[in-house]
């Protein structure tokens, strides 16, 4: 039946192509349509954003966009061979231009498919290099996880799209025999969780296939026969578990834009939210429309996340889209102010957990900027420096942060001491220094700096930066 319909279509096209007007336009449309589709297919296969491809090619993102979405008209778009050649190389392929008969369009009728437009990258070109061995399932994984890996690894390694298999797994068919509490997305994520660098390759290939499903607008019409809600939940949570924004960011954003005026169940919105946090599209779109409102107002008009989700979104943006520590620190400041009326100091442990998520906090520069930005935080959240000079000249300086307290004491005639009381502990780790004589604040501050500088704990970095900032401001005041 299907073969009959293909033959009928071919026959009809053969007839139509005899008309010169028809065939010239059809050939032009085929040229434009196939080039734009293949650039998109290869970019998606490589996991490149339009910006990244533009960078490789030495052009701007709108140029790539105009190739992928050419202006519709009767004439060919203004594509230069040089540009197409550079795009081909940027995608790890070569540009081939050939002159063909119009009749060859009949043979191409069903030949240009999503699958046929894909090409391996040079390193995986089977003619140039031997195919790398297929990764083994994780021998230390539980038996059912290995079972899933034995299904998924050959499927992904072979690198045929076979989307129907994934659609089946997302609906729970063909998975290890499990109870109702095990969701299909958990098995899919376990299936690609193998030791070594192969995991990254498998995750990327899974992400490419998920991107194809997302591009089919499953929120409008799920390509499945079972429950659409269960399917979407598993689809979005699988995306949330991958963090592959180059593959998933754009199609997820398109879904968000489409569904934000509708009312799907909260669980689906939560799953989509999780996927959007991990797979962000562009530097500003989710930031302005989702993360900032969650932090500024403590809610979002459509998604159910609050400040913490907004902060996670900004943090992942900092890690995957655009390094932007200032925005992360801004978010912390706004959260400290919002929480002042809803618990304040009682929420300090929760607030500290947010702080410890900042990447690179063990580096002095990051800690310094944190301390600097903390000047705008609500008082309960700030790292604090307290100093006290008694009438007898004795000095006491105390810095608290993250539940940890650093203290320097120096009594006249005695030796200066520094002590640390760590978060959650009553024990004090005291060290006596070589400083003696009349107590002097700058020397005691230096002593505390040395002590914090020698500590490995992450709190020590922040306290070191705080004390240093304090010392600098004291010197400035003096």
């Amino acid at each position, binding site marked *: 039946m299907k073969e009959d*319909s293909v033959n*009928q*279509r071919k026959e009809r*096209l053969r007839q*139509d192509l005899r*008309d010169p*007007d*028809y*065939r*010239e*336009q*059809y050939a032009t*449309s*085929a040229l434009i*349509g196939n080039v*734009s*589709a293949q650039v*998109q*297919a290869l970019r*998606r296969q490589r996991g490149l954003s339009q910006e990244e491809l533009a960078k490789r090619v030495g052009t701007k993102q709108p140029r790539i966009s105009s190739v*992928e*979405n*050419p*202006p*519709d*008209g*009767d004439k060919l778009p203004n594509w230069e061979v040089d540009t197409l050649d550079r795009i081909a190389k940027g995608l790890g392929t070569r540009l081939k231009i050939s002159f063909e008969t119009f009749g060859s369009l009949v043979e191409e*009728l*069903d030949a*240009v*498919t*999503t699958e046929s*437009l894909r090409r391996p990258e040079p390193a995986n070109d089977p003619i140039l290099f031997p195919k790398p061995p297929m990764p083994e399932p994780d021998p230390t994984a539980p038996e059912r996880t290995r079972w899933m890996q034995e299904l998924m690894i050959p499927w992904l390694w072979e690198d045929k*799209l076979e*989307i129907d298999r994934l659609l089946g797994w997302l609906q729970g068919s063909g998975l290890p025999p499990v109870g109702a509490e095990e969701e299909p997305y958990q098995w899919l994520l376990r299936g690609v969780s193998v030791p070594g660098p192969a995991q990254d390759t498998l995750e990327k290939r899974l992400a490419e296939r998920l*991107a*194809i499903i*997302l*591009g*089919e*607008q499953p929120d*409008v*019409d*799920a*390509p*499945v026969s079972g429950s659409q809600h269960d399917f979407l939940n598993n689809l979005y949570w699988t995306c949330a578990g991958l963090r592959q924004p180059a593959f998933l960011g754009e*199609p997820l954003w398109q879904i968000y834009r*489409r569904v934000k005026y509708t009312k799907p169940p909260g669980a689906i919105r939560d799953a989509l939210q999780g996927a959007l946090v991990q797979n962000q599209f562009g530097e500003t779109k989710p930031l302005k429309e989702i993360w900032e409102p969650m932090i500024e107002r403590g809610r979002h008009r459509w998604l159910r996340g609050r400040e913490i989700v907004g902060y996670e979104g900004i943090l992942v943006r900092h890690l995957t889209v655009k390094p932007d520590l200032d925005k992360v620190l801004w978010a912390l400041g706004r959260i400290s102010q919002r929480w002042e009326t809803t618990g304040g100091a009682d929420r300090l442990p929760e607030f500290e957990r947010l702080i410890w998520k900042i990447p690179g906090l063990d580096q002095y520069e990051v800690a310094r900027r944190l301390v600097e930005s903390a000047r705008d935080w609500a008082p309960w959240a700030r790292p604090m420096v307290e100093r006290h000079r008694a009438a007898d000249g004795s000095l006491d300086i105390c810095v608290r942060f993250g539940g940890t307290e650093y203290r320097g004491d120096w009594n006249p005639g005695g030796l200066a001491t520094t002590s640390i009381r760590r978060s959650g502990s009553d024990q004090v780790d005291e060290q006596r220094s070589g400083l003696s004589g009349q107590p002097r604040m700058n020397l005691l501050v230096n002593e505390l700096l040395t002590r914090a500088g020698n500590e490995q704990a992450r709190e020590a970095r922040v306290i070191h930066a705080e004390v240093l900032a304090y010392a600098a401001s004291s010197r400035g005041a003096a």
Partner: protein
Amino acid sequence: MNREVWEFLVGGSRRVISAWLKEENISPQERAKLDFAVNQLRTLDLGLISRKLVAGPLRGTKLYKLRLRCQNRELRPLLCRGPIGPGHDCTLLQGAIEVGDKLRPKDAEERASEHRETLVSRPTWRERY
């Protein structure tokens, strides 16, 4: 992810797009554009088809439109996903031409929606495009 592209049969027998091609005196060039676009729908996933070519779903409906600029007019055949059988199949429901932001016939969207509803209750009223 090959999909079938179907065409609604008005009254169960008259091909809606073929009739429209005749009524509007669609030129060979215009038909070539339409045929290639339909073939792309058939063989590519939606993510690879230019968003300038397929728009939708149109607000408040389950309809999509093909956007084909041909010489001096804008063809806007309306279609939907399914609506029966595999969700990724498509059915062309109504031919339309856009003139100054308005479709001709004026009620093209309503007609397309009606055809879609009809097809749900009468699944045999379609043939492969």
